């Protein structure tokens, strides 16, 4: 067992937590404004694909990263317009976006790169394994400051708690919600970009494999607060790191390897347990999921 807990485990935890932290903080801005963001997964996929494709084409990972942010924002804009302008059901819209984003990257890579699903390999010198980690680290205190110490944060929180009160106080409810959702697209886009041009060197089909949802779980577990959310992300990241190291190391009493599929299940099972155990004690923004309608 001791061989699992090493320095490399810490690095591995940080690497695996980074996309979760980025996406979860993004989700926080959206949900604090009152819009459920189940579409984090789709926004991450958009960011991952676009970043990989642009980096490959242009040869600059920073241009790729910016493009990934842009792609996240575009997807977020779809979610925002459907949920805010047309008051669509936020869960249904988010789910539709997620399904859509499983297909779209494959379709586009087929068109651009004559492959179905993945982008070509990006040379090692064009990867950015560190920048997104620093962004994530700096983003935690920054998000806290923005949320609690600026007029923008106060307005954002008020719109998620009681949009009528905010409206009566002269706060533009729709504009604040757009800002929250678009910010979530931007951050989830960075999280996705990190997966394709930071951790690995290409985009593969559905490469987020549920990280958007785990980020959402971490957000709930972290009570929609930046620091707690980061800690929750680190916990999920640690679990994933441990499971990777466990493969081939931890054996059944009979001496056989535990099937790798079972080990891969651990982070997801943990997500369910954590949510089932803690969701009751976590109080979501009061107006979360409720479209705001002025005249009733």
């Amino acid at each position, binding site marked *: 067992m001791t061989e699992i807990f090493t320095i490399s485990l810490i690095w591995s935890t940080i690497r695996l937590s980074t996309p979760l932290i980025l996406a979860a903080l993004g989700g926080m801005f959206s949900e604090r404004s009152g819009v459920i963001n189940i579409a984090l997964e789709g926004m991450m996929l958009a960011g991952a694909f676009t970043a990989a494709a642009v980096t490959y084409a242009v040869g600059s990972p920073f241009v790729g990263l910016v493009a990934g942010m842009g792609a996240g924002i575009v997807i977020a804009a779809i979610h925002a317009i459907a949920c805010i302008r047309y008051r669509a059901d936020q869960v249904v819209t988010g789910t539709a976006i997620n399904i859509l984003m499983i297909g779209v990257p494959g379709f586009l890579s087929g068109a651009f790169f004559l492959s179905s699903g993945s982008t070509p390999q990006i040379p090692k010198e064009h990867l950015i394994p560190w920048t997104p980690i620093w962004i994530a680290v700096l983003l935690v205190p920054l998000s806290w400051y923005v949320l609690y*110490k*600026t*007029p*923008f*944060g*106060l*307005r954002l*929180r*008020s719109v998620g*708690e*009681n949009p*009528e*009160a*905010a*409206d*009566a*106080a*002269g*706060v*533009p409810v729709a504009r604040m919600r757009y800002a929250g959702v678009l910010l979530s697209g931007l951050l989830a886009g960075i999280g996705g970009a990190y997966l394709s041009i930071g951790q690995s060197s290409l985009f593969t089909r559905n490469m987020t494999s549920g990280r958007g949802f785990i980020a959402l779980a971490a957000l709930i577990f972290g009570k929609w607060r930046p620091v707690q959310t980061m800690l929750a992300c680190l916990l999920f990241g640690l679990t994933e790191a441990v499971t990777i190291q466990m493969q081939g190391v931890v054996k059944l009493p009979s001496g056989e390897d535990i099937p790798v599929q079972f080990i891969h299940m651990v982070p997801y099972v943990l997500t369910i347990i954590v949510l089932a155990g803690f969701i009751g004690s976590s109080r979501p923004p*009061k107006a979360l999921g409720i479209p705001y309608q*002025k*005249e009733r």
Partner: protein
Amino acid sequence: MIELRQITKRFGAVLANDKVNVVVKPGTIHAIVGENGAGKSTAMRIAYGFYKAEDGEILVDGQVHSIETPHDAIALGIGMVHQHFMLVDTMTVAENIVLGAEPGSVVALDLGKASVEIRRLSEEFKLAVNPDAVIENLSVGQQQRVELMKALYRHARLLILDEPTAVLTPQEVEEFFSILRRMREQGKTVVIITHKLAEVLAISDEVTVMRDGRVVGSLQTKATNAAELARLMVGREVLLRVEKTPAKTGSTELSVRNLTVTARGGAKPVKDVSFEVRKGEILGIAGVEGNGQTELIEALAGLISPSQLSGEIRIEDRDITREGARLRRELGIAHIPEDRHRRGLLLEFDLAENSILGVHYRTPVVAYGGAFLDYGAIRSRTKEIIEGFDVRPANPDLPARVLSGGNQQKLIIGREFKVNPKLLLVSQPTRGVDIGAIEFIHRKLVGLRDSGCAVLLVSAELEEVTSLSDRLLIIHEGRIVGEVDPKVATIEEIGLLMTRGH
């Protein structure tokens, strides 16, 4: 100060405001009265930029302004306190007050500066509020002060108050009125929307009366009286005082001994309560809302688990403490609940279905041994209720949702009267109901009493509970703290018992 000219506003097919004209003079307290749905709030919400008028114009200080959003209204010095407070419960007083008009720069919120300003305003207008308290921990009266502070913080010169006293105790109302008078002295203008005539006469300088979306009178308060205002509001003569003969009481119908209700958290909303209700009398229970009335009535109606009750509830000679709601109904207990949407109606069901709730398993509404509903019988029963209780529109197929509050209430009352109860438990019978319907409901309740039914009445309206009751108990923090004779007790005396307990 502000003038509405020919304001017209439609909600779907309903004409909420029809060429409304209101002139509010600076430095006055101006009352706008009317029944529910008369369009008072709509007109004022238009003035505050919450709604957009289809036609008409608004003048502020003699000049035409277009007020598209609350933001525009605030910029013109107009503030509004809504009936349902517009506060963010999880935030502090200071955060709520500055929201939308934050001090400091874009990148740094300066709540310290805000607190200083809030303290200064507290002094000036004698509005005690702690800037650091979280809203959800404050009483309703304190929350209202935060709402006033919000408007003052934005330098409002005109304050629009929508039904501000609905949530206050009599003592708080007095205090609130002195705050309003102080504001008038400081040169502010106040518009108060209300349907309580006594308040109009007590506080206002001028009054505008609305009915069915139109202004039907603009008067000097000094030159009018309650009867005239009521006539304008309803459109016909209204009896403001309940007429009733002395009660002819019979034997004891309900007796409650040492009843205590223990809530799930361990709190005791009802503590050691004992009383009796006799046939042919109305026993009133007065108290500030949230002092155990809800739990008391629900315990009597069989809506609280017997495991949470101790003490004894008897109907005639039978101990029903452990019995469920169905058996209690069969023994002749009827219940008109305080919250008609939560306990009284299935809003999406039609009137016919709603009018058989509680008897839905019994003859005459079932056929073939209870296997089927007898729709013929249901329809004729519904018709009788609709006709007997003047429910409008008189269509048994409409969902209950589309009826106005008063008509929903009349349907429930009709349904409960229809079972010829021996004991009627009734909570807030006229909440959100128009004056005309109030008069009707009061007459029906007195009529039921005269036919020998025992009535237990809970109401937050002191006027109502004193005028209807034959005897009056006062409840405070779950205990009965006194009994008064409603014919001789003053509102002040009762109000004092309600708030202090002794």
